[in-house]
């Protein structure tokens, strides 16, 4: 009988494939606007809801979204949050900080971001916030152009104004 060899447990087969990627028409328009410090949403032709970021179709009704995008304010309302105590190399806030879902004024979908200049003891649903942009010469085609949101000092938004977006 032949000698039993050790089973092969590792086989190196490096896979390298290059792609020429396009974000698409809608996402490209959104990102080019972010590069200029503008936040663009798009309106669903069926019920008028404004999606942010803008996208090529309404994911609820499955209809193409055409026409002019809607420019949104960089202020909004926290609809929910969690407290993060785990460091991330992409976020330069001191721990702990709040990760927040923000309903921008004029939008019907929420945006993920982080909350700065605010103690985690103070963060709450309904809190009004505004964007803190990085210096203009650091802007790229990224939502990181907004460094974080901070409390705007306005009175809290009433629950009814954001309850369907939680």
């Amino acid at each position, binding site marked *: 009988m032949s000698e039993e060899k050790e089973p092969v447990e590792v*086989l190196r*087969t490096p*896979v390298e*494939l*290059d*792609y*020429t*990627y*396009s*974000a*698409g*028409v*809608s*996402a*490209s328009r959104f990102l080019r606007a972010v590069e200029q410090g503008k936040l663009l949403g798009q309106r669903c032709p069926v019920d008028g809801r404004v999606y942010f970021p803008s*996208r*090529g*179709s*309404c*994911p*609820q*009704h*499955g*209809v*193409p979204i055409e026409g002019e995008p809607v420019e949104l304010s960089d202020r909004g309302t926290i609809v929910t949050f969690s407290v993060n105590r785990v460091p991330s190399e992409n976020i330069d806030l001191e721990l702990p900080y709040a990760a927040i879902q923000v309903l921008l004024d004029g939008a019907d979908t929420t945006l993920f971001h982080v909350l700065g200049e605010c103690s985690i003891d103070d963060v709450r649903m309904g809190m009004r916030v505004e964007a803190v942009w990085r210096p203009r010469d650091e802007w790229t085609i990224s939502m990181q152009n907004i460094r974080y949101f901070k409390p705007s000092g306005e009175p809290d938004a009433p629950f009814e104004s954001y309850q369907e977006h939680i």
Partner: protein
Amino acid sequence: MRDVAVVAFTQSPSVRCEANRNETEILIPVIHEIKQQTGLATEDIGFICSGSSDYLAGQSFAFVAGLDAIGAWPPVSESHVEMDGAWALYEAWVKLQIEDADVALVYGFGKPSMGDLPRTMALQLDPYSVMPLWPDAVSMAALQARSCLEAGVISEREMAQVAVRDRANALNNPFAQVKGEFDVDALLAEPMLVSPLRKHDCSPISDGACAMVIAAGDRARELCERPAWIRGFEHILEPQDLGVRDLTRSRSTEIAAEKAGAHSDKIDVAEVYAPFTHQSILLERALGLGDAAVVNPSGGALAANPLMAAGLTRVGEASRRVWEGQADRAVAHATSGPCLQQNLVVVLEGN
């Protein structure tokens, strides 16, 4: 067997490179058009199934973005195959057979222009002994063509004749990418691409999408004046390893055609998914097409090959001939895997 029919089909024009639109944006107008054509809203559709490939998109779960084209809220019953949409059609057909739904939407989409397609296709090969050598898809097909030529079962002239036929047929297809009147001798004078394949022997690389609605019984009759009834449906798989297969015929197509009942009566029209000319010859034989059958009236995959949609497009194009009364009985075929590894056959009838 429950009566289920193809009642609607839409497709995007096939193009070499959709530079600006992403996969979802290619799909959106195709889905929108089929909903308008049929008058169906998302809530009228009992099941949705799609075919696409994350390897083409270069992203994991890339197909999920395709759901933006559907409108998946309230939530929908949905599934996906990492294969051509023709196999998504099979899943949807089974769903209708077990009476889980009466109407299904099927779609396929792909944007292979993003990557190096012949190289990407190497990833479907045996991962231990073959794929690390990175054989590209054209070279794999050339191995098969060479074995067919050496066995004397096909000739280079017959291969060129397939290209001439399909490119001429494509003149009537507004969605096709490669079309025109060509001369067999002129094509044979062209240089080899990967011997024994010349450029005309190979399908183009195409970005594109297509969508189809199938429906059962009276629902089908409501949605279409002359539905294309699915009378047989089968798909059969051969081993992955080329060395254990007979490359000079397509046994799996022969068996699938037999089981689908393709041979039980005359065939008026056949739409064959042959990415290479020699494969078209093998497939036409395996399907047992008589001289009366019109083959690839759309131009087939040699005229437009939107990967992950091209197989489903064969079913759509064959169905169209039934709807329009040009065929009482049509056969559609789709393939997957290297050198015709897996083959699917659908038999469609007007009555």
